[in-house]
């Protein structure tokens, strides 16, 4: 696992790792992956994967509109709000990956 791969996975996970963290994690992940390689010893050629261990039921309810949560409740822990909206950082601004620059824009309201 190269540092590049670690940084790639970190970006997939939206984790802003420092260079020290990248190096530490690379070593630790390699150790765990080494251990996990144990599974290669198991013959799983005709074995179905298990996603759910207990009886899988398709649980549905009638397609009826029900009251949702009150807006105040939903916004009660908002880091930033504007009216009845969560105020969030700009989603559509350019992000020049890897160049350490970004076009920092005004925050937009997205409801």
């Amino acid at each position, binding site marked *: 696992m190269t540092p590049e791969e*670690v940084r790639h*996975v*970190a970006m*997939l*996970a*939206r*984790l*802003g*790792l*420092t260079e020290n*963290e990248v190096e*530490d*994690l690379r070593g*630790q*992940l390699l*150790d*765990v*992956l080494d*251990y*996990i390689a*144990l*599974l*290669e*010893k*198991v013959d*799983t050629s005709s*074995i*179905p*994967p*298990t*996603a*759910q*261990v*207990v*009886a899988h*039921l398709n*649980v549905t*309810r009638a397609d009826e509109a029900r009251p949702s*949560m009150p807006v105040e*409740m*939903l916004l*009660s*822990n*908002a*880091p*930033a709000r504007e009216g009845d909206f*969560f105020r*969030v*950082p*700009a*989603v559509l*601004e*350019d*992000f020049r990956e890897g160049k350490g620059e*970004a*076009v*920092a*824009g005004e*925050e937009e309201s997205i409801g």
Partner: protein
Amino acid sequence: MANVEDRPASLAYLTIREARQLLDSGDISSVELTRAALERIAGEDSAIKAFTSVSQEVALAAARGFDGRRAKGEAAKSPLDGVPMSLKDVLITEGVRTTCGSRHLENFIPPFSGTVPAKLAAAGAVLLGKTNCDEFAMGSSTENSAWGASHNPWDLERVPGGSSGGSAAAVAAGMGSYSLGTDTGGSVRQPASLCGVTGLKPTYGRVSRFGLVAFASSLDQIGTLTHTAYDAAIVMEAIAGEDELDSTSQPLAVPPYAALLAELEKRGGSLDGVKVGIPAEFWGKGLQREVSDAVRAAIDELRHLGAELHEVTLPHTEFSLATYYIIAPAEASSNLARYDGMKYGYRDPEPGNSIESMLATRDYGFGPEVKRRIMLGTYALSAGYYDAYYKKAQQVRTLIARDYEQVFEKVDVIVGPTTPTVAFQLGEKMGDPLAMYLNDVYTVPANLAGIPGISVPCGLAGGLPVGMQILGKHFDEATVLGVAHAYQLATGWHRRRRGIGDQLLIPDPQVENAAQGLNAHV
């Protein structure tokens, strides 16, 4: 430190069963019991750090509620009415801060309660507070909490286990009669074992996960931490059952667990006809000698009680940990994507666009262990690696589950040690993630197979608690609890504790005598 001694009839260590009698007879009020618990927390928790939040007003309001109803001649709402308890800080509680041991949620006040916390509140439970845990339930020592580690009441320099370490420590230290934890790879059973209390993980789907902050959705279950299996039965009746808000909860009736155990008592606590499987694979490398000895002695006790011992084999045991450490992190990486600082929780204060904001927020918000697991999980699910890792692990999971199905055709329960060692020192395993993961070697299979399991105290090694694990068939908590209860009727390890300032907080000879007079008390 106080000497190890049998648990006296002190208010701090009342079982739910005992507290129920004293509350209903009027020998003690819920407010007295609650104040005693709150004073104990105020006095001792600076050393143990079991609690992240103490909800004094919520507790006293519930206690007054019980006392008021009793004064009007009303019967208790439930067997849990008026009894003080705590909840692990990954269970959301309306109006009571819930942090999951994470900086992301340092100031998060849930606007609603999870199904199980709400059920307990409606049953009259007295919530003393929220207990400390490894961040987002990831860990085996509670050292991964953003708020610092909890300490084992048996030896303050040792870990209480994890991730439900605060819950186990609270019960072991007499702070409330029970606690709820969560168990994804052993996080109720392992700390129960290390702290000398009884810890039950129900069958996957037995108890609703709505309001349990998700770590690994196919593995998580809420579990009970109590002094006895009988108390675990009482709590299970209150919390189990189908929930329309959790589509993985199963539409199965909840057996009257406590009544079944009472019937077992009437039959003299015999285990005649019960078949116990002893897997060779549970006695391997890394198992501490004194732990092995204590558990073997406990198994011998089961035989004296009438159980038939059978040697069995679970051939894929050696692959369980590797399977778990792909599946759990993979599911976690998906579940923890929600901590992006957009709608709740911590948001990095620096200006920037949404990606920069998330990168910075998540770098600050998550501790090292959570980052490790998110990275591992993301990697295992990423393009090019999904088949080799995640799909492979799911296939091995099938084989592990089949091992248990086959063994359960021949036996009713499977027994072995809960953990390979007794409680280790704080800091001892923090430098080596893999060494830490090895603590879960006997507990993860139950989560992978979805089966129920309980850990009961069965001895002391070097003065530290040892736990015996009893595993059962899907939805057969009744048999698991039955074996545990029969064992506890015949032995006294669950009554041992290492006290810290363990005098009666409200000296009252009348209460002492009343409590001492309670018979057949487990």
